[in-house]
Every structure is written in C-alpha cells, then in structure tokens.
C-alpha cells in the first residue's frame, strides 16, 4: 500500500478530532519534556558531585589497614588441620604503613601516577572556650598539590605557608565558622596522644563537600607526627591518576602487592554513590509514568476514532483495503501523535533546561551549588523520544487490531 495514502487518511482522522488529538499530543509532549528536564537536573547533580569527588579526593587511598585479619602462626603451621581459636588476642602492632618509604618509591615509578604520604589522625581544636573535634592531616605540600585539589580550594593564604610559618595549620571553612576562627588566629590543638600545640591559622579552604569542610585540617607531616607522637609514621598514601578509570584495577594491584587496604574513589564514596542508584531507580519509573499516562490518551483517541470510523473501515475494506492496510492507518495515527508530541516535547524540554539554567540560588547539601547543575545529554532526548514513539505505537496497536478485524459485511449490512 502506498504509505502516503495511509498517512493521508490518518492525518485527516486526527485533524477531524482536533481537540482530542491536541490533548493526547499534550500528554506525550509533557511526558517527553519532563523526562528530559528531570533527567538533566538529577543527572546534573549526580555528575557534578561525582566529578567533585574525583577532583577533590585522591583517586586511591592506601591505608594502614588490612581487609582480613592476619593469619595466626598456628593456622600457618597446620594449614590442613582443623584449627579453632578462642579468645584470640592479636599482637599489638604499631599502627602505620610499614615500609611506607619503599612503597612510595615503588609507586612513584609508575607512569601517570602521583602519590603523596600523609598521617591522618583525630584531634581537638580549642579556641575561645570551644572544643571542636577535627581530623588532622599531616601532608607534604609539594607532593600534596599534585594529588588533591586542596591548593585550588584555599579561600585565603597559600599552601606553602605551611612551610614558611612555624606551627601552621589550614582549616576547613566549616571548622573555622563553628569556632569563630579567622585567618591568622592562634589556636590550641590537642591530640589523643596528649600533645598540645599552639598553631597559627594560615589559610582556610572550602572544597564544596560539606563533610570535608567541617572536619578536615591540614598541617605539615612532621608536625602531625609530633602531635600524634608517632615519629616517622605514615598511615595514608594518596594516589592521583591521570586516568581516573584505572583507579579500581590499580587499587586491587596495590592491595595484592603490599597487603594494605587500597580504596579507589568509588569505594570511598560508596554511601553517597549508592544514594544515586536509588535516586535513579525512583526517577525513571516516575518519569515513565507520565509517558504511560500520555499513552492512555493516545489509546483513548484512537479507540474513539476507530469506533467512530467503523463505517469508513467497512467501506475501505469493501474497496479492497487489506486488514494490514487498515491496521497501518490507525497505527500511523498513533505514530503521528507520538512523533509530533516528541518533537514538541524535545523543544519544551530544551526550553525548560535553559530556563532552569538561568535560575540562580544558593544551596547547601552534600555539596554547595549556585543554581541547578544540569547535564545536557542527547541520550535523554533519544530515550524519551524512543519511549514515547514506541508506546504511542503500542497504544494505537490495540484499537488498530480491533479495527482490522471488523467484518465489513456486518458494517454495511447494519447501516443498510
């Protein structure tokens, strides 16, 4: 059958029922538009957050920790025997990465990899009668700046002032705010080891990730070792890669080679990332529901047309239209609504995104943001369009099948 003829008939049917056609068109349009806008918004926040995580945190952190408790000598002595240990008290080991210098040297030889040592521990800041518990991270600025974004996140001061000022400390913006500390203030820092130091705030940083800004402080590695009373100890190796995707496999290799726990960024942020899995699981059904409702509109309009056009269907068949030709006409009607609705929906979706992009507001949650972070992806357009057209065709298929099965004799006889 000549496609234009089916198209011609389909179009005229739709134009004849202008109002119903518009309503079902609107359904598809809104479904597609919202799908695009909401996807752009949610994925925008997700991607922004993930890229910030990748940017701010080291891609891999090697910790002075092992995933499984060490095998006990008795287990090693009788590997095939049934050994049951009760009330085992493991040997007290000095915490810290043993042979850290060697590991550092080995890792530094790997191309596309930067590594920095750190000693991370708890501490307490005492200032103006307030005590704030913080995370004290001892770093070497020269190496650190290659591995994390701390230098870019500084609001005032420089990273090098850790070298130039004695007993210098850099605070997160949130820490400073809680205690009312400003730059150049002198504060007391106490460690669990009982060491107390008077330190000068040389800089503040804001990473945009609230947890970090509220707890992290930076000092020189040597100062941290003194504070924690752990001379020459390193308990973290921070690694940054040129290729972020390599973080997972490389972490596994490091773990096998050195025995220490190496966490890639995906694992460090697993809690947050898993929220996004849930978010997606909620988003897609919700947005799809809009499209499904739209499809009921299509089903409705085409069912009505089929009902109203019973006589025409009879006459088309008596003229020599095959069943499949009749089906084609009505499926075509669904497709027209689906395709036109999708095109308008794309336009409105795009306009919604641009409108949201023009809004500015301050927001603080997991991350800080000014306005909506939007992710514009042709995939959203393709998915929404594909779903809309496909479901429109499906919604049209059922009434179309009924139409094609009508018996022309019943129709012409009933009318005559």
């Amino acid at each position, binding site marked *: *059958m*000549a496609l*234009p*003829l089916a198209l011609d*008939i389909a179009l*005229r*049917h739709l*134009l*004849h029922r202008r109002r119903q056609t518009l309503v079902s068109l609107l359904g598809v349009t809104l479904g597609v538009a919202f799908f695009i806008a909401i996807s752009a918004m949610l994925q925008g926040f997700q991607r922004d957050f993930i890229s910030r995580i990748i940017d701010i945190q080291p891609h891999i952190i090697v910790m002075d920790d092992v995933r499984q408790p060490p095998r006990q000598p008795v287990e090693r002595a009788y590997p095939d025997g049934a050994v049951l240990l009760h009330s085992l008290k493991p040997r007290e080991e000095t915490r810290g990465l043993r042979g850290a210098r060697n590991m550092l040297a080995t890792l530094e030889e790997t191309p596309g990899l930067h590594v920095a040592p750190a000693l991370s521990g708890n501490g307490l800041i005492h200032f103006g009668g307030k005590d704030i518990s913080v995370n004290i991270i001892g770093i070497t600025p020269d190496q650190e700046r290659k591995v994390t974004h701390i230098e870019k996140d500084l609001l005032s001061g420089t990273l090098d002032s850790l070298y130039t000022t004695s007993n210098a400390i850099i605070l997160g913006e949130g820490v400073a705010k809680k205690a009312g500390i400003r730059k150049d203030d002198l504060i007391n820092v106490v460690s669990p080891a009982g060491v107390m130091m008077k330190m000068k705030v040389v800089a503040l940083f804001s990473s945009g990730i609230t947890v970090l800004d509220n707890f992290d402080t930076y000092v020189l590695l040597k100062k941290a070792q003194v504070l924690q009373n752990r001379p020459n100890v390193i308990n973290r190796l921070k690694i940054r890669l040129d290729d972020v995707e390599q973080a997972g496999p490389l972490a596994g290799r490091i773990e096998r080679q050195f025995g220490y726990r190496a966490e890639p960024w995906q694992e460090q942020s697993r809690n947050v990332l898993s929220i996004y899995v849930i978010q997606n699981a909620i988003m897609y059904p919700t947005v799809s529901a809009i499209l499904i409702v739209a499809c009921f509109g299509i089903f409705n309009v085409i069912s009505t047309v089929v009902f109203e056009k019973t*006589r*025409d269907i*009879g*006459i*088309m*068949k*008596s*003229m*020599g*239209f*095959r*069943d*499949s*030709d009749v089906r084609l006409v009505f499926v075509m009607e669904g497709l027209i609504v689906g395709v036109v609705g999708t095109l308008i929906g794309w336009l409105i979706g795009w306009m919604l995104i641009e409108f949201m992009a023009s809004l500015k507001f301050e927001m603080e949650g997991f991350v800080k943001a000014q306005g909506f972070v939007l992710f514009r992806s042709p995939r959203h357009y393709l998915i929404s369009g594909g779903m809309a057209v496909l479901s429109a065709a499906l919604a049209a298929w059922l009434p179309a099948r009924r139409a094609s099965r009508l018996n*022309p*004799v019943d129709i*012409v*006889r009933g*009318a*005559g």
Partner: protein
Amino acid sequence: MSDPSPALALEARALTRELPGPVPVTLVRDIDLTIAPGEFVAVTGPSGSGKSSLLYLLGLLDRPTAGTVLLAGEDTAGSSPDRLADLRLARIGFVFQFHFLLPEFSCLANVEIPIRKLGRLGRAAARRRASELLEQLELGDHRDKLPEQLSGGQRQRVAIARALANDPPLILADEPTGNLDSRTAALVFDIFRDLAHTQGRSVVVVTHDSALAHTADRRIHLVDGRIER
C-alpha cells in the same frame, strides 16, 4: 478485463451461506448463477430473502459456507483474505444504499482513494482519472466539495464514480436507490444500464423496486435464499 477469455464475468456454484449459532440461519441456499460481461442483472425479493447476502458473497466481501464464486474464471474458494481484498480492489466496484464516502475527503479525493490504493497510476494520472469519472457523471463542478455539501443523488453518483475508479469489470450495487426519490433513482439506473451496455461491464443491482428491476436485462428473484424462477 485483463482476463484473456472472460467467457463469464462471474459464476456462482452451489453457493450456500449459513450463520452459525444454536439455531443456524441459512441466508443463501444452493445458488447457481452465471453473469456474462455486459449484462445488467437485477436481484429482487422480499426483505430477508438473502438479496444482500448473495451480493456480498458475489463481491467476495463474505465467504460462503459451501460452494464457490468464480471471478472471471478464478476460483476464490481457497483464496486468502489478502487475495480477496486485492480482487475487490482491482476487479469489483461496490455501491451501497448509503454513499459511504469518507467524510474528511473531497469528492475528487474520495474517487482517488481506490486508484492510489491500487497504485498503478501516478499521483497526477490518478487525479486526472478521478476528474474524468466525475465529469462523466456530471459532477465536474463539485469535485472539491465535501460529501456533506452534496445532495443524496449527487453523493450516490460520487460513490458510483469511486466504484468505477479502477475500471472494474464487475459492478455490484446494494439498494443503490433506496434513499433516493424516484426520478433520481431512475437516473442512477440509467447510469448502471449504460455501464453495462456501452462499457461492457457486468452490473448486478439488488433492489426492491420492481419497476426499476424490470428495466434490467435479467431479473433474479430470491425467496428464502433460493432463486425462484
């Protein structure tokens, strides 16, 4: 018309049509019938005598319970529904009591539909052919009007033009004058007679108007689904 030896335009052999059900109803019973090219046949009979049912069987719209219809020598007993549809499209023209024009299409577009469906002519040629048919039926001035803007007689003539669109050798009409006044009805019958006698088509018209039926070449009178001689 493309058939090499159309000795018979249409032949029915032992045609029977029953409606299944707890009490089966026989619409048409054991009918044998032949119609030659250029013959104008009227089918008459009281209401419920099976006139229309016979016409639908002859026009391949309905399938017989027993017996078969041969269209220009082709036995249609085992033909697929698609084949029957193709035969209707190319070789049979239907006219019904109600005009059954598609209301969204102009008269010209309505006549064009079967031509476009068959697809033998290009778009421009289809339009020319449809125009000519409307001219022949003296509807040239109304070609761009919608069916609802025409009178009953005019609509019926558009329907006849549409039935002729693909130049079919067989025209079947079911009470084509049922809704027309007697003068218009006579005009429509004149057209049918002309289609048979000057254009060589076979025309079968179902009617309950015995006066008009008498103007046909042959009359077939049905009672209770049987031919009464």
